[in-house]
């Protein structure tokens, strides 16, 4: 079933969404997640309402929601969920699906993509490049706002002008990991996951 309520999903996404729908089937809509969420008031759908969308099979709306990009991953909802639903991890998986399925780019999406690109390139994070990549796509002037703090950190030696690269062999391993994950996820329905 890769054609869900009007939108066509890739087989991998459709299968991942079905799995998510099954995990949230036990949600009793008590709202503990939303009442515990520090950013729920700023979301278009509260985490509880997002669970409802998933239960109803309204995946397209769930993937378009601001909610999945407003999650701070503090895990309070997951800790408290009376039905032991791993809400935080589910939101994470939805972010991945939204990117893979080409949903409109949000600030969070730009950040995540830039972050993983940098990791893929160096094996570790390199903040200046991450910031530049981010601000090239999102609020270009924002980088000016970050400048004073960046400068302060630079002066304290807390921002390195040069990336720390892994040795060549390690870097090759990192690239192989990225490629292997991509290959598996294209070939087969999305990776199994939560423990």
């Amino acid at each position: 079933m890769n054609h869900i309520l009007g939108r066509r999903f890739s087989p991998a996404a459709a299968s991942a969404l079905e799995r998510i729908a099954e995990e949230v089937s036990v949600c009793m809509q008590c709202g503990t997640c939303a009442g515990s969420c520090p950013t729920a008031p700023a979301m278009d759908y509260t985490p509880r309402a997002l669970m409802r969308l998933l239960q109803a099979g309204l995946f397209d709306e769930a993937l378009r929601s601001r909610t999945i990009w407003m999650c701070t991953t503090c895990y309070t909802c997951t800790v408290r969920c009376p039905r032991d639903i791993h809400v935080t991890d589910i939101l994470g998986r939805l972010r991945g699906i939204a990117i893979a399925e080409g949903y409109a780019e949000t600030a969070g999406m730009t950040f995540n993509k830039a972050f993983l690109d940098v990791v893929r390139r160096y094996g570790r994070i390199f903040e200046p490049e991450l910031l530049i990549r981010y601000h090239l796509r999102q609020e270009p002037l924002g980088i000016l706002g970050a400048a004073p703090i960046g400068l302060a950190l630079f002066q304290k030696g807390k921002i390195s002008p040069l990336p720390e690269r892994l040795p060549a062999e390690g870097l090759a391993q990192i690239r192989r990991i990225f490629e292997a994950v991509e290959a598996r996820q294209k070939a087969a329905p999305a990776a199994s996951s939560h423990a």
Partner: protein
Amino acid sequence: MTPTHESEKPRIGVFVCYCGSNIAATVDVEKVAEYAATLPNVVFTQTNKYTCSDPGQEEIRKAIIEHKLNRVVIAACSPRMHEVTWRRLLQGTGLNPYLLQVANIREHVSWVHQDRGEATQKAKELVAAAVERVPLHEPLEPRQVKIAPSTLIVGGGIAGIQAALDIANAGYHVYLVEKQPSIGGNMAKLDKTFPTLDCAQCILAPKMVDAGRHENITLFSYSEVVSVEGHVGQFRVRIKRKPRYVKEDVCTGCGLCTQACVLKDRIPSEFEMGMGKRGAAYIPFPQAVPLKAIIDAEHCLLLTRGKCSMKCVKACGPGAIDFKQQEEYVEVEVGTIILATGFELYDMSALPQYGYGRYDNVLDGLQFERLCNASGPTEGRIVTKDGRVPESIAFLHCIGSRDENTNPYCSQLCCMHNLKLAHLAREKTHAKVYQFYIDIRAGGKGYEEFYKRVQHEGIHFIRGKGSEVIQDGDKLIVRAEDTLLGKVVEVPVDMVVLAIGMVPPKDIENVARIFNINRSRDGFFMEAHPKLRPAETNVEGVFLAGACQGPKDIPATVAHASAAAAQALSLMSRGQATIEPIIAEVIAEKCSACGECIVACPFKAIRMDEEARHAYVVSAMCKGCGTCVAACPSKSIKMAHFTDQQLIAEIEGILGRMSEYELA
């Protein structure tokens, strides 16, 4: 395979049950019967729609007579369900009832498997095992025991009181054992009761007084059962009477000692749920039964430090105070036992986000009851810890219930309890009252009507579980989602009342061990059947009353208690009971008198014959658990109906057929 005890050749009849579609939907019943016909010694096979029904039984009866069957295998539901039914059927035809073997192809097959082919194969294997085993069965004779005309009731809450009065009024003697200094339990702490709003004390106190005075009730308050031996009809019970340090027969309950105690109003009162204070010498509450003082050994200055001015002794006119009192042990013999040990509130330490025990004005429902009650610490005024009349109160449902992190089950009565407390709050204050709920469960006579009545009283219902409570100055902020609006709300209130889930008492494991009864996954005592035998246990003659079996409100508790009493009465009025002959026997010639079995036996049913140098089983006390058989190093103990040969034959039945299956 030849039978070991009879010269005649085994003639086995195999009856395979459809159980409507319960079995037949997953297992090809006809195939199983066809297969059974090919097995050794099987001379007759038949399928039945319902083997347990009258027509089903009649067919088996006819087959036994017509085909001269001397062994019967029934492939149907769990033997726990109908083994007794079919044993009776065999007996009616003149066959010994123990020449039956039940193959469980419902609970062990059709209800737990989906694949029809594999399920049918497993059913065949289980039938083969039964066919291999049953020729080795020996006729056994059930034992008859006399039922002593008395009942032990453990727990003196409303369940124990109700059961005690039912039994005592029928003319049988009751020993009522209560751990606390007074009977009354949790109901005694309530102000009013839903949905009729009767005053709890007004309806409970007369029953407490009756129980205290009844000529057929011996009340052991402040006492605990420490051990039970024996079996249905003849239980020997040892009861520990903790020292009250007050002679019960002398104390008049005047209360002068409680006024005189140097620690008066210094110790949190258990009865007041910590909302009020008492002294070390105290009477738990004005309607206590027995109305006798008690001295709290954990706090009393004399008993803890050996030094006190002992004003209580001087105040007591009749001289009832006796600091030399010791623990006493009493032994009673009873025919039946009823457990009515009730419930406790869930320990909230795993849910710190609600601030219970941390913030002054976060209370549990029983604490709020005490605030409402005219004889409570505030004489019925609902006020905050610092004496303010609250302008707003929030009631939070499902705290420690319906929650995989704490207790997955619904505590059943909290919805109605919260509605009642909300009503009392509105009646006694002008506070804004909020209910934070997931679902309102008002399934009971007059309950939904009460819900509607409370809605009329201007109470704000917010459909969303309270997620956390944060103190902010004088206010408590309840954070939740109004799920029907899809908006997160932060409601400032002066008082929060938590509907804390009901859990088994902390010592339930110990009680279960003493009485050898099972517990269900929720931790409460397990009934013999969830629908049809809700007041019986796995131990014959031991019954359950009230919330010790699972959360219950007062009407359900009273009904359950009366059911338990009726079960006990039915046994006692019959005067005798049949008990299983499935017990262990020591083969004296082989026994080396090492004593391992005596140590292993959980029922103290094995003794040593010191002169003859071998162990022997006291058959009336043996429950047939088989622990001794496994423990015996010289294989000198034989377990009737579960001999090694019988078990090996059963295993061979399965393994033999399995290898055939693999070859095919």
